[in-house]
């Protein structure tokens, strides 16, 4: 059973629909006991970092998340969830969870794309995700696969935590973390087959980790 974190700045139902489609048992919950009992946590997020952080804190889930990560529970942060796992976001000048060292920065619209045109902000649409180190999330996913992004701020973790990168005006980190603690800037639940495969890889990792304990 995967726990999808319930708070007011998440696209929980989209994640849930994707998990249901691939037959992964899941529950949308803010209950600490239920979260603790799950095999892994999915932490979605939409909107602005400041508001998401406020909502998370208001629901008391910031502490729950940190505890679970310390206890070794697998975690997958998505989009704004991915961003606020870092220490700080430029968006609303927000101090964030600090689960992974790093900051989140605004795309500079003066940057240019491959054709020499200024990039548009937000970065919206499909882009490639190039693995920089082996990662269980990408098992069986083609290197040519693309994922759906929509964001104006990008993660900038400490270099040791960079797992995969994407190019938009510049190369930025689109997946960060380490084994069992992952943050993806794109939306796997909206990225077609490769996205569903990534979610199923996460679930497989969670099950293995739970069995090993």
């Amino acid at each position: 059973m995967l726990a999808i974190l319930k708070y007011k700045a998440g696209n929980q139902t989209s994640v849930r629909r994707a998990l249901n489609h691939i037959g992964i048992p899941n529950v949308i919950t803010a209950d600490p006991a239920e979260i603790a009992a799950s095999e892994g946590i999915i932490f979605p997020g939409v909107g602005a970092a400041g508001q998401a952080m406020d909502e998370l804190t208001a629901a008391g889930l910031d502490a729950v998340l940190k505890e679970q990560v310390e206890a070794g529970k697998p975690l997958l942060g998505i989009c704004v969830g991915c961003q606020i796992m870092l220490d700080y976001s430029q968006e609303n000048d927000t101090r964030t969870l600090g689960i992974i060292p790093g900051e989140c920065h605004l795309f500079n619209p003066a940057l240019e794309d491959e054709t020499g045109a200024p990039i548009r902000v937000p970065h919206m649409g499909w882009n490639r995700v190039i693995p920089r180190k082996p990662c269980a999330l990408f098992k069986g996913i083609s290197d040519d696969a693309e994922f759906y992004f929509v964001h104006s701020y990008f993660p900038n973790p400490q270099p040791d935590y960079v797992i995969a990168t994407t190019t938009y005006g510049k190369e930025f980190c689109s997946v960060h973390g380490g084994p069992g603690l992952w943050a993806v800037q794109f939306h796997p639940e909206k990225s077609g087959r490769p996205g569903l495969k990534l979610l199923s890889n996460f679930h497989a990792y969670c099950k293995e980790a739970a069995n090993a304990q």
Partner: protein
Amino acid sequence: MLSKRIIPCLDVRDGRLTKGIKFQGNVDIGDPVESARRYYEQGADEIVFYDITASHEGRGIFLDIVEKVASSIFIPFSVGGGINTVDDMRDALNAGAEKVSVNSGAVKDPDIISKGAARFGSQAIVLGMDVKRVAPTEAIPSGYEIVIHGGRKHMGMDALDWAKTAEVLGAGEICVNSIDADGTKDGYELTLTRMISDAVQIPVIASGGAGHPAHMYDALTKGGASAALIASIVHYGEYTIPDLKKQIQAMGCKMRLTW
């Protein structure tokens, strides 16, 4: 590198597609959920549903369809037609759409854009605009005027000004539909598309006039659009989405070819 997007548009009335869709194989041509599923499997980057239902009952049926679509395709899709209030936006987003498209509702009440953006985020708010070429005047200096009701009603608003205003109000994307080009299959209105895409920071979707992959290539390069909306070019089986994508990529424009 960001891929340019290809977005089929499906018109729905009272729960059925208004134009037949000719897929190979044994598919009910009038079922929007099945059609969405087919385009998803063919590699559409996004899908737009346009509700042209007039009745209240029809609206309920449409939202049921949106929910079914959300459980069967796992790419973004947007919903337009009949979105006139923040509650309309909420209903469509709750049913599972990623984005809502406002058009005449925003012309009549521009604040709906800022209210929607504040509540749901800019990424969820698309401004759709129907545009007609006119002789430039003091009120319409760009020579492109906003129209509603399928082009029957001129609003005395300059399309260029409206695009800039909508961006400031918080629209996350603008879909520029040329009434002059719509249905001609002679190509998109490139001057208009370029003018709007140069004037705003947010992505622009070109709409109206696609009859050939080269038209789409032009809209995505010369027109500066981030995405091309298509309808009859795929609905009647002339091209499949993989055909279009391969040809556009061969012309030199980056497409998503693996899914």
